[in-house]
Every structure is written in C-alpha cells, then in structure tokens.
C-alpha cells in the first residue's frame, strides 16, 4: 500500500505517481449488472462515472467487460467530496433516460461515504437498498438480499425503478476478454462536465485533512501472567472497546 501525503493546498492527497483502479465494490456492481443483463436478454448496461481524465481507463475497462456505452462527467481537481452534490450531478445526467435499475458500489474506498447510490435513488424517486448481496428479477420487481450485522440476512421485494448499493463478494467479477478489450475502443463514451451537471451548493466539505497515524508506538505489557491478563482485559474493554 502506498503511503499517502496531503497535497500542498490541503484539499486532498498527492496523486502523482499513484496507481488507480476501479473501486472494488463498483466492480462487483458492474458484474451484477452484466449478469442481470444476461438474464434479461433485451437490456443495456450503461456506465456513468464522475472524475478527471484518468477515469477513462476504468470506464474502458467496464466497457471491455461488456457494458454497452458510457457517460463520463468530467471533473478536475479539487474534486467534489459532498455525496449529495455528486449524486445530484449523476441524477441530472441520467434522469432523462429513465433507467429501471441503478447499481453502484456500496461505498468508495477513498472517501467512504456510502451514500451516493441511495441519495441518487431518492432524488429520482426510486426505491433503494444498500449492502446488497444478492439480486433476483421477479415479474417487474426486483428482489434483493441485504446483509444485516452478525451473519443475518434479509430478502426484500422492491418496486422498479430501484437504486442498489452492492456489497463486495456477491459474485465473481469477470476479466475482460481480448475481444472485449479491443471492442471497448469503439464503444461510445459521452462527455459532460460536473459544473454543468451539478446545479446546487454542496452540503458538506472537507476541512483539515491529516495523516492518521505516522508512527506506531507499541505499548509493551509486562508482568506476571495474571498481571498481563488483567491489563489485556482492561485494554480490550476500555481502550479498544470490544464490548
């Protein structure tokens, strides 16, 4: 894992030299979408992505895996961090196409808000679900399996249109075939800009970004076995709070 450092203007991290990849849960969402399409037959999988030029690589990867076309909402640094603004831009971009299903990753591994898909669904009047670990299309509705805490799960049947936030691990994402990779070059990527698509003021912003823990200080616990055990129990309950 690369070490991150905060950029000079304090707005985000230094990106130069860092490798980028598709957000992990997004990859699972994409695979789920492709599998639903294979099941349904006559449907289209469209990719939407917000970000700078380097997003194109990930968009092409999705097209190579089998998506039909894409929309790239271009955005330059400093990047928007407010999930409501992001969801608004996405909603404005797709609202006229009247999609039946919107799938997104559960959360982005960088910002970790986990809200975009649900907010998008609310703005467009869709039903929503998060932590989705299974999907089933059933006569005009969608049945999803949600992950609850501690090994519990729940199925729910939702009206379409629906916006689902997909949890990692629910399927085996495919690798792009050679034909897919070469075919992706010819698929359409429509472009627009964030400024055009987001017509509101943001609801929250980052203010003061810092590196969490530069150095690890190990606290050594010493003493007899009983003393050590007592101290460990104290650490577990009061410092780490395992409850």
């Amino acid at each position, binding site marked *: 894992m690369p070490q991150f450092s905060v950029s000079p203007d304090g707005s985000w991290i230094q990106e130069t030299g860092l*490798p980028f*990849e598709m957000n992990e849960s997004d990859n699972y969402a994409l695979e789920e979408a492709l599998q639903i399409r294979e099941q349904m037959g006559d449907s289209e999988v469209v990719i939407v992505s917000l970000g700078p030029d380097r997003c194109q690589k990930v968009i092409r990867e999705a097209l190579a895996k089998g998506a039909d076309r894409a929309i790239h909402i271009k955005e330059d640094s400093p990047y928007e961090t407010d999930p409501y603004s992001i969801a608004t831009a996405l909603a404005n971009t797709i609202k006229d196409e009247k999609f039946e299903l919107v799938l997104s990753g559960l959360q982005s591994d960088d910002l970790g808000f986990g809200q975009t898909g649900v907010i998008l669904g609310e703005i467009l009047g869709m039903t929503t679900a998060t932590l989705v670990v299974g999907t089933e299309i059933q006569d005009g509705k969608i049945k999803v399996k949600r992950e609850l805490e501690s090994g519990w799960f729940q199925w729910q049947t939702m009206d379409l249109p629906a916006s689902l936030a997909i949890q990692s691990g629910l399927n085996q994402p495919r*690798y792009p075939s050679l034909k897919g990779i070469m075919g992706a070059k010819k698929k359409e990527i429509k472009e627009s800009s964030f400024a055009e698509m987001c017509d509101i003021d943001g609801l929250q912003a980052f203010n003061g970004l810092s590196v969490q823990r530069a150095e690890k200080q190990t606290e050594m616990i010493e003493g007899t076995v009983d003393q050590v055990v007592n101290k460990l129990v104290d650490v577990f309950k009061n410092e780490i709070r395992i409850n």
Partner: protein
Amino acid sequence: MPDIHFSNIEKIILTLSTLACLGSFVYEVWRRIRIVLRGQGSLPFDKIGARIWRVINEVLFHKKVMGQRFWPGLMHGLVFWGFLVFGLITIDHFAIGFGAPLFSKSFHHFYSYFGIPFAILALIGIVSLVYRRFITQPVHLGKLSPTSGLVAVFIVVLMVTYIIGEMDISPLTWKINWWLHSAMILAFLWLIPRSKHLHLVLAPINIFFRPFTQPEHTLVEIDLEASEEDLDNMLASMTQMTMNQVLDVFSCVECGRCTEVCPANRGGGVLDPKNHFILDLRQPLLESGSVDVLAQLNIEAGWECTTCQACTEVCPVGNHVEKSDEIRRSEVLIEGKVPQEYQKLFTNLQETGNTEGASSSPLAESLPVYSSDMEYVLWLGCFARYGLDPDFENSVRSFTKILDVANVSYGILENEHCSGDPPNRLGDKLTYSMLREYNTELLSEVKKVVTLCPHCAVNLEREYAKYGNVNYTVEHHTQVIKRLITEGKIKVEKGENGKVTFHDPCNLSRMLDELDAPRMAITSVTSDFMELEESGRQTLCCGAGGGLWWKKETQGRTHLVRAEQVVKSGADTVVTGCNFCYGMMKQGLGPLTPDGRSEISVKDIADIVAENMVSNK
C-alpha cells in the same frame, strides 16, 4: 521345420485375410496421420542428426523407459528387442504361406539360434509385465485394460508358436501352429492402431519430432490494431492443436509416468496429466476428425499446473504433456474467466509493471545503476525487487558481494519491468506482450544480463527470442559463480554447514538445462553434499511455478510435497537457486520439521558461496 505345401485355397484365404487386416491397419493409421497433418504448424526437421541420435538412444537403447522404472523397463526392453529380432522372421513366415520363402532352410534354422533365446526372453518379459499389470496393479497405469490382456495373450502365443515351429513335429501340427501364429499377427495388426499399442509405430516418430526445449507452445501474438476478422482468426487458432500435439495424443502409451511425477497430483489436487492433458483429447480428435478440440480440456485441472514440465521430461514416447498454457490462455483471452487473485496480479502488472502494484523498491534504490561501461545488467526480478520474501534480499547482496570481490562490474535497470513469467504462464498473453515489448526495448543496447531468478532467465533468454531478435546473453547467477570459481576470480574454502542438499529449481534444470553450475559451486564449499531423491532433471517442483505463488486457497498441498522430501532427507541445509523455491522452502519447512529437530536452514547458492569466500590475497 518339415516340408510344407499350401493349397491354393489356403493361399487365397491367406491373401484375403492379410489384405483385410493390413488394409485395416493402414486405414486406421492413415486416418490418424491425416488428423495429425491437419494440425497447426509443421513437424520439425531441424537438427536431423540430433533427432536421429535421440531416437536411437530412447527407442533402441530404452534410455528413458529403463531410466525411470528400471525392472519393468528392462522387461519391456526384452519384449521390444524380441520384436526387432522377429521383424524379418515374420515377413518370412508369411512368405512361406505364399510359397515363396525369403530364407533358405539352413538360414532359417541358423536364425533360430537367435530367435529362440529372444523368444524365451520376450516370454519372460511379457509374463512379468502381465504379473505387474494384473496382479500388482500400480495405480498410475489406471483401470485394468482388456486390450492389454489381449495383447499379452497375442505375444505369448506368438513366441510359443514360433518356438514350436522350429521343433520337429508332424506337418499337420506344424501347419495348425503356422495358422495360429498368422492369426495372431493379423489380429495384432487389426488391434494396433485402435489401441495404445499404436505406440509401436508412432513412438519412434514422435520421439524424432519432439521439441528440444521445453515448454513449447504455439505463440500468441497480439496486435491491438488488428481488424476484427484477424482477431477472430487468431482466437480461433488458439483452440487448435499443432501437428506435434496431435501426434502426442496418438502416441500415448498410457503408462501414467506423467501423473506419477506431477507435483499438483501428488499434492492432492485434481490434475491428472495423463488424462487431463493427453487422453481426454483422443476421442474428440477421432470423432470429429478436427484438431479444434483444445476447448474440451478440463479447466480446473489447468489452473492447478505449476508448468514445471516434469510430465514432459518423463514421457517415454516423447510427448509434450503439459497443456496448461492452452487452457489458461483461452480462459483469459476468450472467456474472461480468471481467478480473482490473478486478476489483481494482471492489473498490477498493467498499471505498474510489477506484480505487487508497488511504486518503489528500496532494494533497487540501494544498488548501482547500470551504465554501458559495466559488464552486466543485474536483473532483479519482482520477487527480489519488491520483497516477496524479505530475507531473499540477503541472497541478492551475497551475490553482489561475490561480484565485487571478483571485480565484476554490474548495475540494475531502474525501469526494469516484470519479465512477464507470471502472465505468460497464467495465460494473459496480452499483459505478457506489453511487458515483453517494454523490456525488449529497455534491453536493446545491453549485452550481458545476469539474474538470480530462473523464471526471468527463461523468459528473457528463451521466450523473448521466440517472438523476435534478442541481442543480449542471459546467465543465471549460478553459472556466473561457477565461472568465477573456475577462473580463480574468487576463492572459496569448504566450510561447515552440516549435511547440505540442493533443490533443483524446475526452471533451471529442465528449462535452462543447467544442472552442473550449482553443484560445482556447492561442492566447492562443502564436503558433505547429498542429492535429494528426485534431483537434476527429475526435480520435484517446489509448487510456486506457473503463477501459483499468487494463488489463494490452495486446496492441495502442492507446495509442501517437496518440503516434505527435504525434511525426510535428513539434510541440515537446503540450498536452492531460485527465489520462489527459496520462499517456498522457508514457508514449508517450518510446519513440517518435527519437534526436537533443529530448523533446516534455507540458503541460496550465492549465500553459501559468499559465506565461504576467502580473501584472494
């Protein structure tokens, strides 16, 4: 042998039955040869002298057949040599039936002084083999085969009827005996092409055409600018067998040696090379008559292979057994079905040019940078560069120490990308071609490369050369060390390391044909060297080859089988010449070393040599 006359009716019957069986034989053989000729590429005729010599060695002298399994090999040899001696006799036998014997009576009688002892030896041979096959039933020979039983009966009857035919018996008995012998020959002719006994005909031919290096697979050249039609053609050709591969399938004698040596199979995996790589293709080839049958291979088995080529090495009829390349490349390039851990590996390689997705290498930064006035490029490889086993850094430094003492100049390439061995062996030929093109460009002005990783060496030297010109030479570090010791550029003395053994890396022994350099180095620094039970070209893979170092959730114990052998050998130190082998030994030996026994030390050749260097002065 009495004076015998064959009536016209007998001659007609003989003619018709001979024509029928001979015709059937020719038809069936020709049918298979035709399928072979539909294969891609062509059969090789280069190095004819070496090829002929190999046939003489392996067929006539039974070098491999007796080398691996001596006694059954010798018994088979007796049957085989018996067959050679009986070649002329058999022709003469039929000639007699047509009333035109080849040999005079006295020559025939004289020949029987060879014939009868050989017949007896052949009988001993075949009876021992029958006992082994049907009573002992070694597991790798597979299910009991009625065909084998039938052939055994044929051979026994043939030998017995020959001997009887040389005895003083009544003409009637002689004739009945004669017809029995002929019937056996004709039945045999009918059976040969329809069974594994086709190896009688095809094995020498297959051994003649066997490639000289391994592994050997069709190249997959990817042109990202190609038209859709060209791409379709290229992808379609990926599932088609080559002539040599088809010939392999029909030559297979089903002995099971390939499965017996396979590390994945021995580790409890699904992979069974005899069936999964060879025999599963036989019916599809015969039924369809087409060579486009590679898609039928078992995919799960294909992912388990370590690409070590033990199967190819051991095959007595010259098969290139391993087919994981064919299976994996289809799964990756055509199907897009890749195990998740390998997807990550490929993405890392595409993004950063190394297997770990890392952006820097402290080891590389601490070493001198290559400039053209230096003798060698020291090629590190991702394993050393990115600390896949952090202790291996010591081995790299042992080697640089040796080079420093010997006054050999070297430098690393700052922009070294992965040599591409993992994607190459895992079927991602696209990522491989990207890395290969990049490195070829990087090495365009370089003359000499030395590396500690045999996987890198195999690719940089041999694999890259299959795609284009390579203007540099590649040495494995053990080869350089051997040379430096021989030339007196470094001085070593024999030190104390307890019992020392050497684990041959499969990429070094079987793919680079290097057995001697590491041994020379080790025996220069210790007097207590012992070989492991499967060593040299018969080495048992450590389990990390073929990209399996990055495999998650190992079902079998492929990675532990060799470690077990090391523990059993009683060695105190195991030396190896490959960073993957080093890492696997370190991981595997720990849990397997019994309580009370001290830890087995794992060293690279560079380590043990550097430790025992003495001052030159």
